[in-house]
């Protein structure tokens, strides 16, 4: 099979995504056509819709432990087999976004690297970031000290290496018009400390780089998709893990990469928990590196069974899709490399007993088939299209529908008789005032309700914290009663997390309800205004309220990976002396109060973060959407009044355009 055929086969899985874009393009075009002739009062909402379509870029994050093969897999996904640097040691140090065929590429730029600003850098080095703070709070000065010393070492080497350049770099960014290995290596990989010398530039800016954006225009790949590579979790350089975990909420679809050697360890389970706090159906598991197994086929079955069982035991959704494959195989198929690693080739042969793998072409074809990459493309595309893509389209269609409805109303208003016109005494200024009054009362009501919900949430979160502390201490006491003060002991923080997530979700649900109420009030009052003042009857039940966005998932709850790992900070408080034998009866009361303090210290920031960083922004978003909606309605009323006053003849042509748009958006 020729190279170009292989390439075609490689990107076949992305076809679903192309169909989706075609649909979005048609909608965009229809809205553009409509906007040429649209009445001025809908200009703003139309512009908003167009901006939304143009800015839409679904993103997919690839996450996993160090050396699971994430960068290799990403290279395989985009078919650029050596774009991202890879190594046998942990290598990726920066979250790297690959923008495929993007419309938003900054002019003349293919690579953009942003550096930490002074504030971020200082916070990082002062405390070791959140991880260091957490360890210190939990009384693990050892760990806190280690994180701090790692960060201080990093700061020293970075500042020494960069010298005066450091000051100019901080807070700035570097852009390049072309992509090449040398440039990329300077920013996004660790570098090898054993290799020093003048000519070694690998990783020279890595520590200071906050994000990397690479723009690729590749034929055959879908448009407008962003794939993100992340530093591996479970790195001994603990800070990087925090960067990855904090970034998870930016992507709705996550591919969790496992290494076939050790599929699903406790660390992977912890990572899955964090991601599933976002939304379970958006997670894909890819078991990578199957080419390193001696007998991939039979071992794949064993791994699958064991994964399913473990996932079920750990309480995960059994619909999480599990794929198997090898980024190495896919890259071999698409690269110019002539020789596959012998072990890997033997493994490939076991998967293709009927094929003659004598020629390198045959090996390439077989390795693409067994790489699982086409299936992964398809699974990613489906999730993008069916999940966030479908929601996005629905949202757009609702907005277009509202624009159409308002335009039609205004169009029809032209046919009002002179007799009725005479009865209208409302001036435009009065109208504006009345609409403004409506908005104010509605927003006051909303703000009051939102404040109340905030208080409710706070109370429920505090209660959850208390209940958890009580149950943890009960469990501690019964452990002592049954086993004495020996053995390790831990208490699953899942209960706390579920309770807090439950409280947050329920209050967010109520917030949505308040949003709906506000919409209804706006519509009711506009209806009343139109009926009373203009004598126009509007059927309010045909109006689509704008979609309120999905509220930010409470990832903060899961971000504290230490809560999830057995043998970690929380559980070790009981494990102070390895066999616990120094802990006598009198000690347990002290341990208890120390434990309660620890739980409170650890969960109090969660409560605050949940409220400040999740709930408050959710209120602000809903508020903005209601306000925008009300302003649109106000402009609609004004336009209606204006139209009724003027004498127009373009109505017919305009209504034909409306019909066209309606067809496109359905």
């Amino acid at each position, binding site marked *: 099979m020729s190279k170009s055929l292989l390439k075609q086969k490689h990107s076949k899985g992305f076809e679903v995504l192309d169909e989706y874009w075609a649909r979005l393009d048609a909608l965009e075009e229809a809205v553009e056509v409509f906007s040429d002739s649209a009445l001025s009062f809908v200009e703003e909402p139309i512009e908003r819709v167009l901006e939304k379509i143009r800015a839409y870029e679904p993103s997919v994050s690839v996450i996993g*432990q*160090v*050396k*699971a093969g994430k960068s290799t897999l990403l290279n395989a996904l985009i078919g650029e087999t050596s774009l991202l640097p890879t*190594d*046998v*040691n942990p290598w990726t140090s920066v979250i790297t976004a690959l923008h495929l065929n993007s419309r938003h590429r900054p002019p003349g730029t293919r690579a953009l690297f942003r550096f930490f600003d002074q504030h971020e850098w200082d916070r990082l080095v002062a405390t070791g970031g959140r991880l260091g703070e957490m360890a210190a709070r939990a009384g693990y000065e*050892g760990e806190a000290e280690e994180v701090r010393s790692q960060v201080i070492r990093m700061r020293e080497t970075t500042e020494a290496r960069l010298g005066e350049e450091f000051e100019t770099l901080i807070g700035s960014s570097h852009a390049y018009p072309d992509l090449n290995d040398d440039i990329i290596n300077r920013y996004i990989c660790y570098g*090898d*400390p*054993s290799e020093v010398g003048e000519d070694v530039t690998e990783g020279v800016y890595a520590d200071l780089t906050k994000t990397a954006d690479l723009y690729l225009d590749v034929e055959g790949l879908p448009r407008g998709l962003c794939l993100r590579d992340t530093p591996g979790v*479970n*790195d*001994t350089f*603990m800070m990087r*893990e925090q960067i990855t975990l904090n970034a998870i909420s930016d992507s709705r679809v996550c591919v969790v990469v496992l*290494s076939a*050697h*050790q*599929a*699903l*360890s*406790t*660390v992977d*389970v912890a990572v899955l928990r964090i991601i599933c706090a976002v939304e379970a159906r958006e997670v894909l598991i890819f078991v990578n*590196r199957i080419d*390193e*197994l001696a007998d991939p086929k039979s*071992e794949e079955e*064993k*791994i699958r069974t*064991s994964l399913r*069982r*473990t996932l079920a*035991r*750990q309480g995960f959704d059994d619909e999480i899709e599990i794929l198997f494959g090898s980024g190495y195989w896919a890259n071999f198929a698409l690269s110019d490399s002539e020789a596959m*690693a*012998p*072990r890997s080739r033997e493994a490939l042969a076991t998967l293709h007993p009927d094929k003659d793998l004598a020629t390198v072409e045959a090996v390439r074809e077989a390795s693409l088939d067994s790489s699982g990459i086409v299936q992964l493309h398809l699974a990613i595309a489906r999730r993008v299209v069916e999940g966030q893509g479908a929601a996005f389209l629905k949202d757009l269609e609702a907005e277009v529908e509202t624009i159409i409805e308002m335009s039609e109303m205004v169009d029809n208003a032209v046919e009002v008789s002179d007799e009725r016109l005479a009865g209208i005494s409302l001036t435009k200024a009065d109208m504006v005032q009345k609409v403004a009054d409506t908005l104010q009362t509605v927003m006051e009501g909303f703000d009051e309700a939102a404040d109340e919900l905030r208080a409710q949430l706070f109370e429920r979160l505090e209660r959850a914290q208390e209940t958890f502390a009580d149950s943890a201490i009960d469990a501690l006491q019964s452990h002592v009663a049954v086993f*004495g003060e*020996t*053995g*390790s002991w831990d208490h699953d923080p899942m209960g706390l997390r579920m309770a807090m997530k439950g409280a947050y979700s329920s209050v967010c649900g109520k917030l949505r309800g308040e949003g709906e109420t506000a919409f209804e009030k706006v519509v009711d009052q506009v209806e009343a205004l139109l009926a009373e003042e203009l004598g126009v009857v509007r059927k309010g039940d045909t109006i689509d309220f704008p979609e309120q966005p999905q509220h930010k998932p409470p990832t903060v709850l899961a971000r504290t990976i230490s809560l999830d*790992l*057995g*043998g*970690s900070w929380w559980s*070790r408080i009981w*494990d*102070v*002396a*390895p*066999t616990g*034998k*120094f*802990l*006598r009866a009198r*000690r347990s009361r002290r*341990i208890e109060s120390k434990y309660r303090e620890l739980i409170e210290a650890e969960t109090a920031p969660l409560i605050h973060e949940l409220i400040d960083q999740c709930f408050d922004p959710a209120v602000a978003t809903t508020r903005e959407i209601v306000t925008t909606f009300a302003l649109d309605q106000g402009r609609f009323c004004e336009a209606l009044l204006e139209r009724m006053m003027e004498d127009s003849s373009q109505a017919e042509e305009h209504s034909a355009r409306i019909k066209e748009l309606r067809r496109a958006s359905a």
Partner: protein
Amino acid sequence: MIRKRSSRSAPSATLPRKPRVLVAGEFSTGKTFLINELAGDDVLPSNVTATALPSVWLVHGEPALMKVDARGQGLEIESLAEVDADETHYCILSHPSPILEHFHIIDTPGNSDPNMSAESWQRMLGFADLVVWCTNATQAWRQSEKAVWNAMPARLKLDALLVVTHADLLTDPRDAEKVRRRVEREAAPFFEEIRMASLLDRADIDGLSKVLSRVTSEMGEGTGSRNELVESFVASHAPAPGKKRSGPVLPLIWPRRAKGSAAHAATQDSEGGAIVPLRTPAQDCGTTAGAKVGPARAAWENASRGIDKTDPKALLNAVEALIAALDAPQAQPSGPRVGGSAGTSQNRAGREE
């Protein structure tokens, strides 16, 4: 950790016991494979996914197997297939492999396995004299390993060996060198020795075997807790004197893994499966309520009164005070030895005398 001198504990302790090498690491790092290679025989079943077996304590002798439950009751059984990891604390297995003449090997279930509690392997730490930590070359030395290693009892960190397994998966020698350099850089402070090993390479295995034999022979009497059940098991399954096995070891076949068969277990029970009570390390080491207070314990209670026992520094001071008290003129020459949680050079010296 304060231990009674072994000569005072039990009459059976007149024979010096063999050193014990505990093999630990995350699951699927090739621990079991390594042990089989060291033993020169498929002594243990292994698997690519986590192995649902409890720890297995390998001793030298005629083939025999015993499972030990949570109460420390031992029961002789036919095969590891009868073992339920949830109910069995560990197994004792005797095998005629020559390497077991030098030291016992304790195989542990992998750490980081979400289906196995850490307790399942940590409970064996008290018995170990030496730890071999296995890490997979393809994902070598991660934070989860480092965290577990940091929590290890100090006495076990002294001579520990880090084995980077599956080195054969790094086909390019430069890659292997890079991994070796990084592991050395990051893990050197925690281990006495770090070795890369391809488990398929006889020379690597023999090299490891030599290191283990050397370290265990230089170790003197180990610091691990006594285990009378194991001692009596060893005594009753020792090869008959004069009938020392030579030539190739007979292959033993153990099932890969399966649920125990109830019928089988029942016959085994009625056919004289020995039930022997076991002293757990905790019982060995700790004070039990109402125990008679001897001079050493009294000295300890005196030395440790009112200190924060969760504070390693305070503990260390108390231990030193205890040693001083016991070394005082009236103290008997056979004062308690220290091999516990502190791990200072003094303790080490104490152990080597």
